């Protein structure tokens, strides 16, 4: 038998006898003949554990999975996490358990989700957070649907053009099928055009507005006054914020947000080719019963002990079916645990330190790139956090190829001439200097050619 199947020949015979069948295939006698699969699967033969290891070693050889020094961001960041985090989330009691429906044997999961919700609420300043979402993009789409569903009379949900285009595309997709229009509010010099926004709001019929902080280009926008203008028209203010930066930056609640969402990957989760990360979603107490997803609440058990349990389930699909606030069923639980342990270790000071080092590195790199004389700010004078855009005077694609050849992922190209670079606390001064050096060298060769 195969290592994951415990059935001996003797077991099979006894069990078949009890089930009243001669062979296991007889158990499929109720399947119409025309629907039976009769050939072999066209799949490789089984690999032994040794061969499996060899196979994946090959796929992760340097040629197949180049470990680049990462200056790319655009929604996925190379942050540090203490070794403890990965080790603890691998504990099988967490890893191999199901959604905590049976509270009596799931206090581990319920307990950490309660801590997670508390941390997200504290970072965002919001009253209540759910147990997590798939990712930042789908959390934002859920927020758009929440705004639409909350509005009595509305004809659109507004979204700033400075929201990550990947996120925008997901929001557009959800809105299209759910059946409401998304109107893009244009940007000037990399930030939301306030006069265009004021005009849209004045026209009325706005269910809500979605903005991002820092925005896609890394700029920290000033959203003062927006919440009031929206609330006057009964619209909802949705702020998609990078939770890592919230150690320093004004919270969504301080901006007057009704809903805060975002991608939690920046809280130390490995990049892993883009997933799994974790989406977060938080809101005001007023909107609590419209929040999608799982929520854990505190209660007492019949022995008088403090206990935690899934609550407010009347919002959810398994109770309400098509009338649920969302179709979301699972959350991204293990990644919520990851974030919770990460934040427990980093704590109050650590997250601020991460922000300071990243901020300092990004600004230092920007200064050095400008000093080469070959870059200029894409959005002059705009404050940024740990990610920024510069315009390159030469052939940007060729420059990026050169950096890659030298083991550097120099950023993400976001326009013909525009390069977006992110710096985290993982990037040393030496790496920053070497990247600048590679770029310097390349320019010289280019000039010679």
């Amino acid at each position, binding site marked *: 038998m195969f290592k994951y199947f415990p059935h001996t020949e003797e077991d099979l015979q006894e069990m078949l006898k009890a089930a009243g*069948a001669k062979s*296991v295939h007889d158990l499929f006698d109720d399947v119409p003949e025309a629907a039976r699969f009769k050939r072999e699967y066209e799949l490789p033969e089984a690999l032994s*554990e040794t061969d499996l290891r060899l196979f994946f070693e090959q796929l992760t050889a340097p040629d197949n999975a180049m470990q680049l020094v990462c200056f790319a961001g655009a929604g996925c960041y190379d942050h540090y996490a203490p070794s403890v985090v990965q080790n603890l989330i691998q504990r099988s009691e967490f890893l*191999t358990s199901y959604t905590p429906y049976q509270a009596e044997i799931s206090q581990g*999961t319920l307990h950490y989700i309660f801590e997670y919700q508390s941390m997200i609420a504290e970072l965002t300043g919001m009253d209540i957070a759910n147990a997590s979402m798939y990712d930042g993009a789908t959390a934002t789409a859920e927020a758009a649907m929440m705004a639409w569903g909350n509005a009595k009379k509305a004809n659109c949900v507004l979204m700033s053009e400075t929201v990550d285009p990947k996120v925008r595309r997901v929001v557009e997709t959800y809105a299209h099928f759910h059946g409401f229009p998304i109107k893009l509010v244009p940007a000037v010099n990399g930030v939301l055009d306030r006069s265009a926004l004021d005009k849209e709001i004045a026209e009325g019929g706005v269910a809500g507005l979605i903005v991002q902080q820092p925005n896609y280009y890394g700029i920290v926008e000033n959203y003062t006054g927006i919440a009031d203008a929206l609330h006057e028209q009964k619209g909802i203010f949705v702020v998609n914020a990078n939770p890592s930066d919230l150690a320093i*930056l004004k919270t969504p609640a301080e901006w007057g947000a009704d809903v805060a969402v975002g991608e939690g990957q920046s809280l130390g989760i490995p990049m892993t080719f883009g997933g*799994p990360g974790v989406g977060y979603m938080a809101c005001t107490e007023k909107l609590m019963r419209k929040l999608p997803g799982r929520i854990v609440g*505190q209660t007492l058990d019949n022995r008088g002990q403090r206990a935690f349990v899934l609550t407010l389930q009347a919002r959810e699909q398994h109770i309400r079916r098509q009338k649920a606030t969302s179709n979301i069923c699972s959350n991204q639980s293990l990644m919520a*645990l990851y974030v919770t342990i990460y934040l427990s270790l980093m704590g109050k000071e650590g997250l601020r330190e991460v922000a300071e080092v990243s901020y300092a590195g990004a600004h230092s790199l920007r200064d050095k790139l400008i000093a080469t004389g070959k870059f200029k700010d894409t959005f002059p004078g705009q404050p940024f956090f740990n990610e920024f855009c510069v315009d390159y005077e030469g052939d940007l694609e060729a420059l990026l190829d050169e950096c890659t050849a030298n083991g550097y992922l120099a950023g993400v190209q976001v326009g013909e001439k525009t390069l977006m670079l992110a710096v985290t606390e993982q990037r040393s001064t030496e790496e920053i200097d070497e990247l600048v050096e590679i770029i310097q060298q390349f320019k010289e060769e280019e000039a010679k050619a």
Partner: protein
Amino acid sequence: MNRTLYGNLIFELSKKGRKGYSLPQDYDRTHTTAELPEALRRKEAARLPECDELTVVRHYTNLSHNNFGVNDGFYPLGSCTMKYNPVINEEIAGLKAFAGLHPLQPAVTCQGALEVYYNLQESLAELAGLSEFTLNPCAGAHGELTGLMVIRAYHESRGDVRTKVLIPDSAHGTNPASAAVCGLEVVEVKSLADGTVDVEHLRQLLSEMGSEVAAMMMTNPNTLGIFEPRVLEITKMIHEAGGLMYYDGANLNALLGECRPGDMGFDVMHINLHKTFSTPHGGGGPGSGPVGVRKGLEQFLPMPRVVEAPTDSCTGESYVVDWGKSFEGKRGEELSVGNFFGNFGVMLKAYAYILSLGREHIKEVGPLATLNANYIKERLRDSYLLPIKGLCKHEVVFDGLVDKSTGVTTMDVAKRLLDYGYHAPTIYFPLLFHESLMIEPTENESKETIDAFIDVMHKIAEEAKTDPELVKTAPHNTPIGRVDDVLAAKQPVTTYWKTIAES
């Protein structure tokens, strides 16, 4: 698991000045965040815990002791396919070289990852009998929604306005919920007394509204664990009405080796990698819900897509990422359902599983899972009411105890099982019966494990007669007793901050 409650919150262990991290200190401090205008900075520091490393390690280790996973014991949770999560898969998913890949790095530098991605798409297509898969959706429900979007995009492309979706009344709650999110109107199809789709009712619905039907969603085996005997007729009827057939892959595990959704006439489906392909549930995610389509529907799959490189490529890649034309935010004809391309870490585990089993063992999965379920069905029917006789597939549904005279409910039986060291079966679903108790053993469980479970189930049935109070007040042997759900919902306390504000 530990039978005593470990009850501290991490915030309660915090003490000012402690820390559990170390960061390099030799960096260029020319710039600090103090440069940012005050209007952009938060007023007060976030009250995150301050703990040393060992305190954090002990806290979460102790918490884990109050949890129950597949590794702890038998997990007969119906419809959830709690199979064994192989450890080697974790080793592979944890390879540093994968963890360090940025999703936007040039394709030529990450061919290994793209190969896994592409080959998993291909493997799933072969196992499902469909043409192509996207791995972008992050969970089963996310896959359902994506699949329905694909269906709507298909009808839209033909200028065909179809707003209704037919769903059997026995379906999982996510089916109607996904349809509603996707802007479709749900029409329920009745079930017969034996739990299968009422084909006459379906015929009637189609004659009334056939031209408005975008799709029918089906789970097969259905949520009662019964194979829909008239599935071929049903798919034909829907196709004749111009609709598409959606296969909810929640119960796919039963069919591995024996039949494929594509061969039954399904056009679009999702697979739960965290069920059929052994990736861990993680206490509720991260999952993965790949969506497959039959030939002719590939162009409606969401972006980005991992595809074979064009043959004229001169940079030497075998696989590339197609981000689509609408990357600048205009939806256009292309869909997108996530930040990047789904939960790659989960895909690695699923692919390792497929390679470990290979073609010769994958085909044994469905038969063995089905044998285990049928064995339980026959051995428990004396004590538990079996409403639907005949063959079941991977799971079996009972309608509570045969002898209900002492008032012991399915809830009580489930809670009593916890005392004996088992996870409870799924209870009160499907809704067709009042006392549903749904058991899914999976192919990984041995006869000894199942026999021991059966003995305990009979013992509980006996207890229900001789000492009903013992069962009604269960569990007794768990870290906490039954919880007050009403209190939790009436005055919701969902953060630590609320608990300290009140005290």
